[in-house]
């Protein structure tokens, strides 16, 4: 049986006058998934998330959260989602537990359940010791985690987290990632956005790469990687002197499906390393290796060069690195 997707959008469009922020986005996120929306700033991630959080009405298209159309029953949708915007403030002059208590009330959590709920949430986000501290005394990473905790007060099925790791130092990012994993193990479905693919790559079960309001690629990270690596980058290590390397280079260049062969290190001793784009699947790669060995080349290493996820992302969105980082 096919379970009801937690998030589903069909042809979601959002226009601001002439400008198209979201141009027909189709998403489908199953229960328990961590789904990443990746794209440069202004790609339409935030708009899509705000539509799902019932803060914006779509110009066209449909969106469902847990099977409920967002425009038919927004209040019911809100009870099922926890939303963390990309930019937000916290009430400085409240204590941490008061902050969560406030949002607990906002979502109608009964008074007798709130103290336990607050304790549990603070444990999850690692702020247990800060229960009585003022929000203004928290570091940025802690505030981010507090905001994450606030999305959980009403035990929603879906978390919509817009750039939860932005502006955090590497350590805080790791902590955030750990928390998201834990939440997933608790059965939450998480829709998370980032403009940096690697940040999401490790933990996401699915990713949609968005640019200029359109989904360019969607699927698991592996699927996307594979579809992008029509020309995988192969690294080969050759033993022997310069002559052997030159012979191998010539041989490889003459082989079907191999692009330009580059020597990437000039080590005096040890194997020489060659890198070559190769347009073939795993089978073809194995065949290439066997053929090389049979042709008498002394292969010390053979494998796919690990391309940075960021490179994949850039290849898809077709933008120079600086623009994306900015």
């Amino acid at each position: 049986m096919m379970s009801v997707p937690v998030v589903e959008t069909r042809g979601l469009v959002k226009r601001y006058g002439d400008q198209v922020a979201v141009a027909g986005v189709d998403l489908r996120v199953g229960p328990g998934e961590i789904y990443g929306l990746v794209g440069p700033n202004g790609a339409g991630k935030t708009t899509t998330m705000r539509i799902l959080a019932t803060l914006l009405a779509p110009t066209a298209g449909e969106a469902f959260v847990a099977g409920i159309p967002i425009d038919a029953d927004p209040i019911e949708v809100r009870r099922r989602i926890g939303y963390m915007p990309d930019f937000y403030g916290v009430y400085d002059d409240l204590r941490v537990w008061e902050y969560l208590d406030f949002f607990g009330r906002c979502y109608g959590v009964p008074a007798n359940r709130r103290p336990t709920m607050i304790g549990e949430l603070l444990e999850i986000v690692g702020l247990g010791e800060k229960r009585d501290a003022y929000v203004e005394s928290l570091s940025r990473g802690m505030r981010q985690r507090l905001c994450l905790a606030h999305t959980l007060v009403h035990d929603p099925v879906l978390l919509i987290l817009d750039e939860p790791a932005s502006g955090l130092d590497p350590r805080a990012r790791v902590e955030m990632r750990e928390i998201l994993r834990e939440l997933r193990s608790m059965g939450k479905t998480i829709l998370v956005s980032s403009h940096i693919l690697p940040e999401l790559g490790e933990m996401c079960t699915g990713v949609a790469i968005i640019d200029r309001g359109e989904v360019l690629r969607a699927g698991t990270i592996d699927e996307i990687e594979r579809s992008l690596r029509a020309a995988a980058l192969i690294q080969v290590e050759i033993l022997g002197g310069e002559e052997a390397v030159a012979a191998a280079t010539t041989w490889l260049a003459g082989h079907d499906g191999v692009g330009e062969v580059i020597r990437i290190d000039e080590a005096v001793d040890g194997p020489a390393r060659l890198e070559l784009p190769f347009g073939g699947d795993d089978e073809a790669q194995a065949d290439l290796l066997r053929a090389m060995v049979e042709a008498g080349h002394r292969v010390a290493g053979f494998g796919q060069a690990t391309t940075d996820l960021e490179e994949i992302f850039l290849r898809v969105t077709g933008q120079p690195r600086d623009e994306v980082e900015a």
Partner: protein
Amino acid sequence: MSATGTTFGSGRRSAVREFGSAVLTIMTKELRSRMRGRRAFIILTAYLGVLALITYGVYVTVAPFVLENAGQVGQGTSQANASRSIGQWIFSVLSIFQIILVSMMAPAFTAGQISLEREKQTLDLLISTPMRPGAIVIGKLVTALAFVVLMVVAAIPITAIVLMYGGASVGDIVRQQILLLSVAIGFGAIGLFASALMRRTQAATVVAYGAVLALTLGTAMTYTFWTELATRDQGFVIGARPAAPEQLRWVNPMIGMLDIVAGVEIDGPTRFTAPLYQLFGEDLAVSGAGFDCGNFGCGRGLEPVPDPALDVLLPSPTGDHWWPRVALTFLAIAGVLTIASMRLVVPPGMRWALRRRRPARFDAATVEAAPLIEELGEAER
């Protein structure tokens, strides 16, 4: 798993309870951050201290004068009434001081309520909860006014000193309180509306105080100039010019307070209120019982103080009361502006939140108008 965790059900009764609980939620949070620490208590203590000083000051200044002149021909106050005269002086000064203070403070407490949430980017978190925007706005207004109300109510014991001297009755104090509270709510709502309208707190404060000036000095000056022009010798002009509309006085809190103060004055507008009476024309002073004290008419005077319980809201059988109109006008202003603020708090994309019943779909008009409205909103962001 999710919806079962909440207490809210459906149906009208639970909708009311839901609304009430949301208002309480906002109030609890606001009071937690507002009343914490010493600030609120220092302000309150200072305020009451100033009121006590004024009371003492009026007594010290007025008592010798009144006692010296009492019983003399042409002074209007008999020996027997000297004590009441002092009481009336104190009541008048305290009332006018308080109405000015409330007019100044109420907008100050509300003008940042919504714009600060915008500036600190906390509004998104708030409006993405299932709470109704109406509950958010009313919760904010009630909390912001709570402190003003506290100040007004805490001053009752000081005002009640006049009961010792006589001259002003419990009914007068009740009337004074009703007017002070209505004006506080009205000006508070004006501040809140400005806060919802403007994106910046600074701008909201300017707008709110502009409105306060317009409703106090503005209406007074307009009324005076208008009356002056209308009653001037019209020469060859055929037909009388229309008199200034009396509604101009309904929106002026000072008028309301002067009306109440006039109700207790024995000697008529020979005191500090005289210029203010003149400002608004003499017919103002027909309020209260028609004790004859010259052209201006004046308060209840030496007549026995009526039963306060009956006199609180009922207009005097012998005269016209202004203050209930002023109070009602301010409550009406508050109602209209609170509803307007609710509309402004809701971002253009979620107008559905304003409807009472959950709609089945966005209507066509919303969808068509949305991009235009949101373009404006987004451009500002």
